[in-house]
């Protein structure tokens, strides 16, 4: 209200009137405000009513709206995972049935016709499981990962091929809470073999067009761009790399800085950067303001390297990308593209001709498009490639075609790092205590080899070669050049025949595929490491086939496999159940939080009725008083008292 000085010398009629007017007007204005508050129930109708409270209210509104999205996502994930949970329930039931059939059909008292009948039941289970694998929920294939637009399991080549993906879709369920809302079909069904993950680090060399985002950085933390300080002992300059996108941009930025005659280039190894200058340039490279650019680029040189000496950075660990030229792989040595490799999957054998391939993508396209129904991908860390056999029920082998392509890529299915335990479809190599094999060279020198300590093929080769060396025998063990297998080559040059026999009744020789007669001076072993997905479909197919043929051992093996599958499904189901519960509790928590937020919001926005009514009454009284005093005062005049 206006502050009218009351110590005025005179009070004019005009003043009395305007005071009355303005007091009444203002009181009425305030009454209108209270009326509005009381009738809308809100004290914040416009942000300017109280900008401070309004700003908080606005943020709370936003918070509620954001939580709406979380809540929607939680509901969707809850529905989806509940569906997964119930699907997993039927999956485990069917697997249990299959196991029961397997165990009740082992033994000599089961008739052949009963087994045939059981086989057809298993066949029907197989179909049902396929249906489950391709189960759709709300238009989305549950087990297809980010390829959920298409059915993930397809019947091909007499097996079941996984054409889904194991990249699981994720969504946000809270501040910084990003979780997948799918179950990995690959893992669940044992859909892809894991044994052909490339073992070679393909370590590509840099080109000027290599993108910085495709580098793992010298420390493995990527390349975080900032600035660095380059000096030559006399002058220095800050090089801003924040706009750089490729190695070429970094080089251009350094060259344009013009510090002495320092120039940058890709280092001779091709894996990192190199800075070189004139005879007088004492090159130093330092971080600026806590940045990590120089460290990430592997060229940090806090004190001068010495006049005239170049600074050669460490490897920046370029990732293998689709666009990487094949010639840049393996530190610039490239891979053997002349000979290619042979991929056999089930009944199909394809020779992969890489002579026309220039980039990694060309190579992957050639492999994936070969018709061998295999899946080649760059691995997640970008260090090499993986070739999967996505078809259950078929065996895959990847072999050389006379060169070193498969080995270069580290994808030879029977390679130096193949674990013995996984050979022969997981039955491993059965060794005995003591020596396992005896080899006799053409000169008649024989030696025994103990394979008990070997865990990989390379260990076997080493054991043979060192035993041969110790016995001064002329025998070298290695890999065959075409196809897969161990080869034993006689170098003794005697008149006898190279021979290999088992000792101590060990099965190791047979399990390594070495029980072959010598051809000339060479024993060529067979491929005992075909790659087969150890999955539900292959186990069921094996059970069905074993029941049909009455192979007791195979029935037991298949039953063991199914037991593993069942355990895995039960474990995944347990995990899924836990996730459903987590989602429910998150939802609950979200609702609790919303309740708290809404009550806070209400305290900011909503009318405090008791207070507003009290205010209303005070104003009413004030207005009444204004009316009464105004009426009395304005009515009074000396003129009334003059005769």
């Amino acid at each position: 209200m206006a502050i009218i000085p009351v110590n005025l010398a005179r009070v004019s009629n005009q003043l009395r009137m305007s005071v009355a007017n303005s007091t009444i007007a203002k009181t009425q204005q305030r009454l209108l405000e209270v009326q509005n508050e009381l009738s809308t129930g809100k004290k914040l109708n416009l942000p300017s009513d109280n900008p401070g409270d309004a700003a908080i209210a606005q943020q709370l509104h936003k918070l509620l709206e954001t939580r709406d999205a979380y809540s929607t996502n939680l509901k969707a994930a809850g529905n989806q995972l509940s569906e997964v949970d119930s699907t997993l329930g039927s999956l485990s039931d069917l697997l249990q049935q299959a196991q029961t059939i397997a165990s009740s059909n082992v033994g000599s008292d089961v008739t052949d016709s009963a087994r045939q009948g059981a086989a057809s039941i298993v066949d029907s289970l197989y179909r049902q499981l396929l249906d489950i694998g391709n189960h759709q929920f709300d238009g989305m294939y549950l087990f297809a990962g980010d390829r959920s637009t298409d059915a993930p399991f397809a019947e091909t080549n007499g097996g079941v091929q996984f054409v889904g993906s194991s990249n699981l879709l994720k969504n946000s369920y809270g501040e910084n809470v990003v979780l997948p809302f799918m179950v990995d079909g690959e893992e669940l069904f044992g859909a892809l073999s894991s044994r052909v993950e490339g073992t070679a680090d393909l370590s590509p060399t840099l080109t000027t067009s290599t993108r910085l985002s495709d580098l793992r950085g010298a420390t493995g933390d990527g390349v975080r761009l900032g600035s660095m300080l380059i000096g030559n002992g006399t002058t220095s300059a800050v090089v801003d790399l924040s706009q750089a996108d490729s190695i070429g941009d970094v080089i251009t930025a350094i060259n344009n800085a013009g510090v002495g005659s320092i120039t940058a280039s890709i280092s001779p190894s091709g894996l990192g950067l190199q800075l070189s200058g004139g005879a007088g340039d004492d090159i130093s490279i330092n971080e600026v303001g806590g940045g990590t650019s120089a460290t990430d680029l592997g060229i940090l040189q806090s004190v001068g390297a010495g006049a005239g000496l170049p600074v050669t950075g460490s490897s920046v660990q370029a990732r293998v990308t689709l666009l990487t030229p094949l010639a840049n792989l393996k530190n610039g040595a490239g891979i053997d593209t002349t000979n290619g490799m042979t991929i056999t999957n089930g009944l199909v054998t394809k020779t992969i001709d890489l002579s026309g391939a220039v980039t990694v993508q060309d190579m992957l396209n050639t492999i994936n498009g070969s018709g061998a129904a295999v899946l080649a991908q760059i691995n997640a860390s970008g260090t090499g490639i993986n070739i999967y056999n996505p078809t259950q029920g078929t065996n895959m082998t990847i072999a050389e075609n006379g060169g070193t392509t498969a080995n270069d890529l580290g994808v030879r299915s029977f390679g130096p790092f193949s674990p013995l335990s996984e050979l022969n479809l997981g039955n491993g190599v059965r060794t005995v205590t003591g020596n396992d094999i005896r080899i006799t060279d053409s000169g008649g020198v024989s030696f025994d080899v103990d394979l008990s300590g070997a865990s990989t093929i390379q260990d076997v080769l080493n054991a043979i070669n060192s035993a041969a060396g110790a016995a001064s025998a002329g025998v070298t063990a290695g890999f065959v050049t075409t196809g897969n297998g161990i080869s034993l080559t006689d170098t003794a040059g005697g008149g006898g025949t190279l021979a290999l026999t088992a000792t101590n009744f060990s099965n190791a020789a047979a399990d390594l595929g070495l029980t072959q007669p010598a051809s000339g001076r060479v024993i060529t072993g067979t491929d005992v490491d075909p790659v087969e997905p150890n999955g539900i479909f292959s186990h069921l197919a094996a059970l069905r086939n074993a029941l049909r043929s009455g192979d007791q051992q195979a029935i037991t093996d298949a039953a063991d496999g199914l037991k593993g599958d069942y355990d895995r499904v039960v474990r995944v189901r347990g995990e899924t159940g836990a996730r459903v519960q987590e989602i429910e509790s998150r939802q609950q928590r979200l609702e609790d939080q919303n309740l708290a937020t809404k009550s806070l919001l209400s305290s900011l926005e909503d009318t405090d009725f008791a207070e507003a009514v009290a205010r209303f009454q005070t104003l009413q009284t004030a207005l009444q008083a204004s009316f009464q005093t105004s009426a009395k005062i304005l009515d009074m005049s000396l003129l009334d008292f003059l005769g």
Partner: protein
Amino acid sequence: MPQMSLIGALNIGKTAMAVTQAAIQTTGNNIANVGNPDYTRQVTSISPNKGQQVQPGIIVGTGINLDAVQRQIDEALEGRIRGSISDDSAASTTEQWLGRVESVFNELTDQDLSTQLSTFFNSWSNLANKPQDIGLRQVVIQNGSSLAQSVQDMYGQLGSLQDDVDKRMEGLTTNANSIAQQIADLNGEIVKAEGGTPGSANSLRDQRDTLLKQLSDLVDIKTVTEPNGLLNVYAGSEPIILGTDNRGIGFRTESVNGKLEASVTIVKTDSEMKVTSGQLGALDQVRDSIGGVIDNLNSLANNLIFELNKLHSSGQGLEGLSTATTSNLVDDVTVPLNNPDANLDFAATTGSFVVHVTNKITGLTSSTLVQVDLDGKNGNDTTLQSLQTNLDGIADISASLSGGRMTLSADSTDVEFSFSQDSSGVLAALGINSFFTGSTAKDIAVSNVIQDDPALLSAAKNGEHGDNQTATAIAGLESASIQSLHGASLKQTYESMVNTVAISSASAKTHAEAASSIRETLEAQREALSGVSLDEEAVNLMRQQRAFQGAARLISAVDEMMKTLLSM
């Protein structure tokens, strides 16, 4: 030796009656004007006539003399009142207009822009739950369209509000000019009427004071009174009225950098008038505030479009593209894309993107890295033309230029293409595979291509049709820090825009109350001096009546004395 005479006494009675009548007339005039707020109370100034020496050392009074009828006025106080009128009307005008700006935002309701932003981004988050669902895609597009529409509406409303301000300013300057003209005219009349006796033309001066108050309501003025009664009026140091010369108050709009700027001018010199208060001063500032809000809204829309398009253009839809045309026009296709002559509204930077060409029959994809060089070095920066040449060199697709736009198309129906990993922002800057088209709040809209085929909405990032990584990235965009907004997010930018208006509006409200309170206080002080009090006038009247009666009695006494004398 002068004579003492009855005539002298009669004369005294005559002067007394005359002066008393004048005083009664003044009182009457005061009483008559009791309801006139602009009236200044007048009082008669009287003094005894010069005495007559009847004997040495003895002086007898000769009656009364009317010196002046004076306005009871404090010129300094009037000046302060005029200042307070300017401030008061400025504050209430600001309050009123900012209230209108605030109501455009409609904030704190369920229909405000912040709710729509949330709804839009939430629909992206929901799309991530089921990226292949056409229904959810339609929801995203629908929410995008209504968001774009709301931004456009808001822009339109703010624009027409600015037009209203302009019209109001134009009208008010006309008023101000006519008031100034009347003051200049009155200056002349006052000098004429007073004829060398400054301060005597009371009613003309009252009229001039009233007009000055009316002018103060419109602009803040300073006045300087000259000894002869002329009053000069200044805005800042620039004269508006010099004596009887009105230099004129005008209104001018001119286009500066594509924006319409409005200003109040002095007609005579065609120079901008410094107006800081009064209705016109307030409107001038409100106009700037609205301009600022429009700029903020434009920047918000621009960043929303560009940042979202950057993510969207590097993503993939449920199907690849068979053809794509840039939606943003490049004026000169031979200059680097970040050159002002190219006239793109978005800034692409050095970087690269990957073009994937997929054969739909074999399902095999071949990818090509396209580099974008915009570092201004080596003279090899990317132009639209060089980009077109590069893209045209990719097998199975072709690129062509026409009228500043580039069109990419697949060479056969078996081939489709898509983009990924654009670190240069060039796709978004040119508007290929974009979600929003336009660049400001005026023209933001959802791309027709996407509206026609929701399958082209990018939810995927890794090339798999069922992927949702672009959708989740876009869902997170609302609260992501954006470099060109000085690290603030879209959400924060909008909130701070609304808060700025709310705070100005609230402070205008407080200011208006304070200003009106100051004005009332000053006016009360003025009333204490210049206002008419009926009670006081009644007492005066009684006194004057008695004085008149006394004077008349004196005359009749003298008359009787004269009769006595004559009948002797």
